[in-house]
């Protein structure tokens, strides 16, 4: 037999051997599937809630931290048991599924997936586990199983108010927007912000920078890129910069603070974040996305024995998005903001969800 044939034989038999090996071991979750059913009924403190974070995880001072606050509140007020897991950069789809499955196998029958990257994994795992309740933040799929609830936000409405605030505070009539990743979600922020700013000052100059384009999602977790982009906009003359960029926004806020200009934070009230305390004087306001309220109210409804499903929209009217007033920097324009907010709530102002081309 020629050597190369032998080699081929070895490789083939080796891999088949592994394949058959895979078929004979016991399945890892065989014994745990029965243990969870008691928890689902939810006795006192019996509800177990698992949370799967997007890239950045707890400590990003922004989106994930907001979800974490909701979870912490549920733990303190509702006495639920919680556990957390976090996504990493460049992971496989299978990693997300494994993460969710592991939470299910651990007896966590209520699972909150933070971020639209989980949509496919949630669909799959939810279908296999109809008795587990899933919530997914920022995403919905028309084909998702009925045990999945989408928690959506009207980012464009909050961003509109941020735009109104920015245009009122800009002395140079020149503002900036930094988006983490040029995804549909962040385009909603951009669209609302621009519409809001133009409603105050139709001739305002608006710089727009996206840190990365999909499929590169590092723009949500690269403070260095945020800092650079903010510096670029400052150099062009912008004096109020709104960054919707996850933890990359921390870099943008730093650059803006160093230049003694104004920054607008996102997702969490960033002026009250301990990690950003030294820049809080430069933070005009934050477009707060009340992910924490959404998470808390979802867990509460499950705790009360309801089976939420479909889409829960958290807009300005439902207090899902708002502007933070920490630091009192927008107190003087509160009446203008209120007028704009009322117009949105009444439906007099409609806000585009995609920026004009």
């Amino acid at each position, binding site marked *: 037999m020629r*050597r190369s044939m032998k080699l081929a034989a070895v490789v083939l038999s080796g891999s088949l051997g592994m394949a058959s090996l895979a078929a004979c071991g016991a399945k890892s*979750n065989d014994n745990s599937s029965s243990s969870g059913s008691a928890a689902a009924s939810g006795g006192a403190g019996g509800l177990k809630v698992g949370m799967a974070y997007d890239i950045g995880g707890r400590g990003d001072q922004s989106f994930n931290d907001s979800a974490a606050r909701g979870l912490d509140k549920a733990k303190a007020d509702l006495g639920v048991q919680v556990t957390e897991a976090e996504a990493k950069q460049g992971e496989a*789809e299978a990693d997300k599924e494994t993460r969710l499955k592991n939470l299910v196998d651990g007896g966590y029958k209520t699972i909150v997936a933070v971020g639209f990257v989980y949509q496919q994994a949630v669909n799959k795992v939810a279908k296999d586990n109809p008795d587990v309740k899933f919530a997914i933040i920022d995403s919905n799929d028309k084909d998702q199983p009925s045990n999945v609830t*989408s928690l959506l936000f009207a980012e464009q409405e909050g961003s509109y108010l941020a735009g109104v605030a920015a245009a009122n505070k800009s002395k140079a009539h020149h503002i900036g927007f930094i988006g983490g990743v040029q995804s549909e979600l962040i385009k909603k922020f951009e669209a609302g912000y621009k519409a809001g700013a133009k409603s105050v000052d139709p001739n305002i100059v608006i710089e727009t920078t996206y840190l990365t*384009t999909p*499929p590169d999602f590092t723009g949500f977790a690269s403070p260095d890129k945020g800092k650079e982009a903010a510096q670029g906009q400052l150099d062009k003359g912008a004096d109020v910069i709104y960054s919707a960029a996850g933890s990359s926004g921390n870099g943008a806020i730093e650059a803006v603070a160093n230049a003694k200009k104004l920054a607008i934070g996102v997702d969490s009230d960033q002026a009250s974040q301990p990690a950003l305390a030294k820049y809080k004087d430069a933070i005009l306001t934050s477009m707060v996305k009340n992910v924490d309220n959404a998470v808390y109210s979802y867990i509460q409804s499950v705790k009360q024995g309801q089976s939420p499903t479909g889409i829960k929209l958290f807009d300005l009217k439902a207090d899902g998005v708002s502007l933070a007033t920490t630091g009192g920097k927008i107190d003087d324009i509160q009446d203008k903001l209120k007028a704009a907010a009322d117009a949105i709530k009444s439906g007099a102002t409609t806000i585009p969800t995609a920026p004009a081309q």
Partner: protein
Amino acid sequence: MTSPNPPAAAKPSLAQRISGERIVLALAAPVLAILLSVAICSVLLATSGKNPFDAWNVMITFVSGSDHQVLILNRTTTYYLAAAAAAFGFRMNLFNIGVEGQYKVAALFAAFVGTQVDLPSFLQIPLLLITAMLVGGLYASIAGLLKVYRGVSEVISTIMLNSIATAIVGVLLVPGIFAPKVSGTSNSIQTSPVSESSHFFSFTTNGGQLWGFLVIAIAVGVIFQLTLTRTRFGFDLRATGRSETAATASGVNVKKMIVISMVVSGAIAGLIGLPELLQNSFYYGQTFQQNLGFLGISIALLGRNSPIGIAFAALLFAFLDAAGSVLPLPANGEFPFEIVDVMKGTIVICVVVAYELVRRYGLVRQQKRVGAQLAAQAAAATETKEVSA
């Protein structure tokens, strides 16, 4: 940095080839590297106040579940293709850093064709495979042609092409072009699912679906090895890889070889995204897995660019990644998953060092043996001289 090509060695006979010493020497380096890396990671874990043995225990018990074994093998399939793509270029001394970009563009086009065309499976699957390989190969050929006609280093051009690939995906993967105008999902853009006939077969095991693409990966490995060792092209390729000038002198058309190798490397790279596309998610979305190309380079380095070596290396990396994903779970002791990245990094660094150490050790042993033989001959010669005197 050492050359990615193993040092030239005279072709030994079969008996020598499978001699114990050779095998021990070949295994010594990777084993040494893994042990060193485990030691380094243990120290790291211990200094961060975690018990390293618990972590290793979690990772080892992970393998015992049959569903986990399937997970690992599925992952190995993807990793193997990534490593084979990189290794093919390396054998020719071409650093194709652009595997990353090639597979993204290829998977995007394959997904698009898969949504537009709906032929019977026996035509559809080959069509998609060929589309992906063609797109990957064409994309890689840009770097090959630039090197041949303009002298642009393929390292520089492929890195640039990686960024351009991201941009291409960004431009094409928008509603109305490659993605459907009205999407079913909010906030994330993806192509429509590929047609039912594009779904690749899988083995049903106790632990779930084992991807049939494993067969393709094995085929790639076998063809890779046969081409290198049994064809004129393979000989030319290895010759060019070791010395371009010598190859030119012996009549090899080096320019042609560079372009062809780059295209083949890119064509293999084109396959990387397909297991995920045709076996799991069935669409190309913005969340398609990243960084497989760079992972492939590490695996190729660990596996010494040999089709068998990279199979073991891919299996090891797949195990580390899959087992590493359960480490941070509270039930498992909340180990940081970064430890897996540290481990992969240290393995790659250690293996480069270890190969060099083992090579030197082998050389010293060889010199000693040859020296001893020569001394014996010399001694014999003087003896005969003395006798004759």
